[in-house]
């Protein structure tokens, strides 16, 4: 009995605490502050980040549960029913019903999208959650790992056979990482430059290392940038009367044909023919045509390390040659090739539109590679413009690599092929939708859309087919699912495709019922009851 009493006492304390007005004020204030914070996060970082950080996070759900407790116990401590509190009971019953309806939706509802390409059947609904699919095609097996709904990097600590899943990045951007090399090679240097003028700036990462994700050439509008071994700069700097440059790819040395007294002849078609000795045989080049040597039939061949360039080929259009800590280019105003040396942090003025090139980094002992790094996303007009990538770090037999969203990676382990695919969760509908036509009307004389309309055929298996017209505020309802016109896209073939949002909400009835109770209760409590009170007050006076 005493145990029962103490339990009851304890319960009453809990009831009084959670049902108190002060607890209500605290929990409502905390809830409002969290929401306000969430809207700012959404504004800067996008909807998905705000959902991961606030709205669908565990602490926020705890706050909602606190609200639920406050509403529930505030009602319980005011029982048995009192006539003047009927409105109050109705409001609180409405709120409890809305909470329960929302919980049912959260647990059992479906909120996704279906992409309809014209005349192609579709039945896959894409959901918002991410998963990593590990497929073993030879065994016909697939392992699916649900990825956590978190705002920041998360250690997964998951392993399957000899595969380990290490870190999940929900928002990532590829950034440059330097990978150290064991043996330094002056022929495999890498540099980062900034090319800029008053209105424009672009960072260039260039490398000669074969394992790098970057290249040794890059094009920026009309400007071609070439990255070459440092030893070649002298050939560009030294004036060469014939404008030719012989390059030995084996030892990265260069020379002028005139300097070495190489045999030069002019062919009947006016093109230069240059001959050099290599391993006791003569190699012929047509430098005005190609840097590669030619055989007797004047066909190009790659069998030797020698190349001959005609610098004239690079005098017409803007070409910038970078050699690590040197730069060379043809200056039309001086009608001459010029070369400049510069250190890290230094810059060289270029003869095009006030551009300069600045050396930001230069390394012999490492090469640059691209690796996903976590970033806080940035949104603009509802689109994620920074951090629109997810990535999972995978380790297989001691070797780590990154699997990026929508970019499957295949890996061979002991002759067995394994693919990794980071993608969105899908569910399959028991029927198919085919987009017959997508129609978009514009406001007269403008490109502003006035309406989006999808004409679809629903294939219901044995139950036949039916035609439907889906447009804004006119969804299609079929077997508990509702399809709403959401967006559109341009297909490669030309016609427009349609994106429908797909929804199944088992909590809908309860949310509607709760809302109705809430509104009626508010009117009863705040307006009708006050009116009666006013009358009573007046009668009293």
């Amino acid at each position, binding site marked *: 009995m005493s145990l029962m009493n103490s339990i009851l006492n304890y319960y009453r304390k809990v009831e009084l605490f959670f049902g108190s007005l002060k607890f209500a004020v605290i929990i409502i204030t905390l809830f409002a502050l969290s929401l306000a914070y969430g*809207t700012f996060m959404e504004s800067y970082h996008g909807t998905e980040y705000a959902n991961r950080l606030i709205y669908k996070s565990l602490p926020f759900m705890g706050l909602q549960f606190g609200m639920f407790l406050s509403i529930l116990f505030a009602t319980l401590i005011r029982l048995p029913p009192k006539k003047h509190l009927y409105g109050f009971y109705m409001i609180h019953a409405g709120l409890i019903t809305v909470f329960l309806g929302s919980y049912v939706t959260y647990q059992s509802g479906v909120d996704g999208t279906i992409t309809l390409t014209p005349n192609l059947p579709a039945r896959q609904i894409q959901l918002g959650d991410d998963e990593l699919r590990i497929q073993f095609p030879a065994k016909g097996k697939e392992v699916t790992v649900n990825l956590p709904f978190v705002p920041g990097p998360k250690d997964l600590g998951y392993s399957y056979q000899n595969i380990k899943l290490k870190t999940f990045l929900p928002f990532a951007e590829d950034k440059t990482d330097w990978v150290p090399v064991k043996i330094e090679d002056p022929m495999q240097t890498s540099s980062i430059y900034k090319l800029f003028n008053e209105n424009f700036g672009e960072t260039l990462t260039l490398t000669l290392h074969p394992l790098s994700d970057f290249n040794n050439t890059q094009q920026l509008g009309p400007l071609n940038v070439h990255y070459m071994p440092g030893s070649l700069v002298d050939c560009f700097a030294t004036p060469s009367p014939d404008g030719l440059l012989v390059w030995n790819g084996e030892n990265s040395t260069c020379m002028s044909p005139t300097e070495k007294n190489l045999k030069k002849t002019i062919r009947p078609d006016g093109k230069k023919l240059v001959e050099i000795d290599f391993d006791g045989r003569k190699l012929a080049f047509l430098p005005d045509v190609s840097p590669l040597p030619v055989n007797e039939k004047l066909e190009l061949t790659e069998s030797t390390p020698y190349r001959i360039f005609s610098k004239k080929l690079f005098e017409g259009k803007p070409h910038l040659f970078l050699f690590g800590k040197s730069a060379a280019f043809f200056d039309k105003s001086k009608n001459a090739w010029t070369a400049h040396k510069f250190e890290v942090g230094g810059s060289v003025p270029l003869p095009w539109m006030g551009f300069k090139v600045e050396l930001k980094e230069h390394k012999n002992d490492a090469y640059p590679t691209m690796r996903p790094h976590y970033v806080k996303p940035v949104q603009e007009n509802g689109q994620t413009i920074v951090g629109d990538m997810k990535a999972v770090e995978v380790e297989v037999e001691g070797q780590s690599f990154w699997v990026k969203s929508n970019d499957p990676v295949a890996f061979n382990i002991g002759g067995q092929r394994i693919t990794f695919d980071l993608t969105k969760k899908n569910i399959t509908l028991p029927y198919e939708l085919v987009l017959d036509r997508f129609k978009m009307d514009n406001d007269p004389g403008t490109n502003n859309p006035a309406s989006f309309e999808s004409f679809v055929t629903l294939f219901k298996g044995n139950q036949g087919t039916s035609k439907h017209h889906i447009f804004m505020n006119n969804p299609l309802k079929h077997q508990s699912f509702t399809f709403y016109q959401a967006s559109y896209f341009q297909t490669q073939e030309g016609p427009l495709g349609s994106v429908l949002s797909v929804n199944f909400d088992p909590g809908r009835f309860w949310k509607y019922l709760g809302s109705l109770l*809430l509104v009626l209760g508010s009117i009863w409590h705040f307006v009708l009851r006050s009116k009666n009170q006013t009358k009573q007050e007046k009668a009293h006076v």
Partner: protein
Amino acid sequence: MYKPITILLLMILSMSASAQMKFCTDELDSYPVLAGGREKPLYVLASESVRFMTGENRVGDLSATEAFCKLSLKAFGMPTEIPVSIKVDHVDVRKLLGMKDGETSREVALLMPMVSRIESALSTQKENNSYKKELTKVRSRLSTYQAITEARAWVTPVKKDNKIEFVTLGEFLTEERLMAARSSGGNPVETLFKQAKADYLQAKGDGYLLELKYYQWNPFMWAMLATLLAIILFVVMKNKLPGTIFTVLSIGIQIAAMAMRVMISGRAPVTNMYETVMFSGFGALIISCIITLYRKEIAFVIAGLSFNVLALMMMKFANGMLDPGISPLVPVLRDNFWLSTHVTTVILSYAALALSWMLANSLLIRSRFQTVSSTDYRYQVGLIYTCIKFGVVLLATGVILGGVWADYSWGRFWGWDPKETWSLIVLLVYMAILHGKFTSWIPPQRFVPLVAAAFMSVMMAWFGVNYILASGLHSYGFSEGGAIFLGSFFLIQVLVLAVTTIKRTA
């Protein structure tokens, strides 16, 4: 330019010098054009274009229509020199364009060569900050100027196969048409325009002219004057009848003006920031009148009139922030039932809460500078509480109606969209105050400043989401220039609170 020499010659041959001068007159105000997806009088298009480019209603001595017409004729080689100065609001953009300190606009001829500089600056801006927005706007102003002077902006009706189609002025004033019109005698250019207008009126009627009357009559300015007079009469005179007459007059004018907007746009007048301000001012006045009928308390009407005049002043003077133009809606909002239920309910709730805010501030200031008896204080608190009750019930209803509309249109009841989230925050803020009012935490002395402060959450939901957060599905009301307004509002409110509550503490 459209075969300028030929057409210019035709024009010169056809029109005397004075006739050329007289063609671009205000008589063109009622000429029908197609612009921004709607058919409207040229006056409206010209006024909107000139205001957008220059921030002014006229160009020098010329009316907007005259300037628009003369600029359009430049496309045909007419030697018209009109000094159009493009407005540049952002200090850093002014620097980029080489403008001097204090220079707020620059002649278009000086800005046109700088388009590439604007484009370059835009390409380097990753974040959508105010600088980037202003660059985009300046580029857009220059594009508008180009469209006018290349005769692309003026889209005129033309009868084809007994149907009215719309073509640009460049396509309209062809050599063929001018020659044909010339053969019929008279001034061919005028003949063409008169015929096009007559064809349009015959096919579509003169309903579009309602918009011309709406802008020319300027009904909201008259409503503002009537409201101001009503306030003065209520305060100055003991007899409440004159004040009541002007209140009714103001309500009548506002109803007529809103009815005109509804007839012009074909939808409920709550679809952009200008219209929400308009409707909230009107709603506050109506709610205050209704409460007065029950409570027999003139303070409500004065509070309603005060908020009404504030709203009307914003509509009149804050054109940089509130665009009075009528534009087609984005597809998802084209539903009059939900517009006229969800949006109007929310705006009416803001109006009721605005009344509580006005009464709270008035009580704070009065009790700071005058002696207010505790009975009077409690009575005033009761008035504020009444307004909040109306506001909270309307807001809860509006938020729920929004959820139902979202469920009906987008398939989810709640999506944490910033606008809906902030509406919920407002509801929570007032709920916290109402709950706290029954605890020792919020006695009447704290209740009043809290109510005054709580309206900042309404302003955040109403303006802040659009001007500061600027994202989400409710993007219909987004516009620039409101951040400063909102910041100033917050600052003034905080100052009022500081001044009035420091006294109490002291």
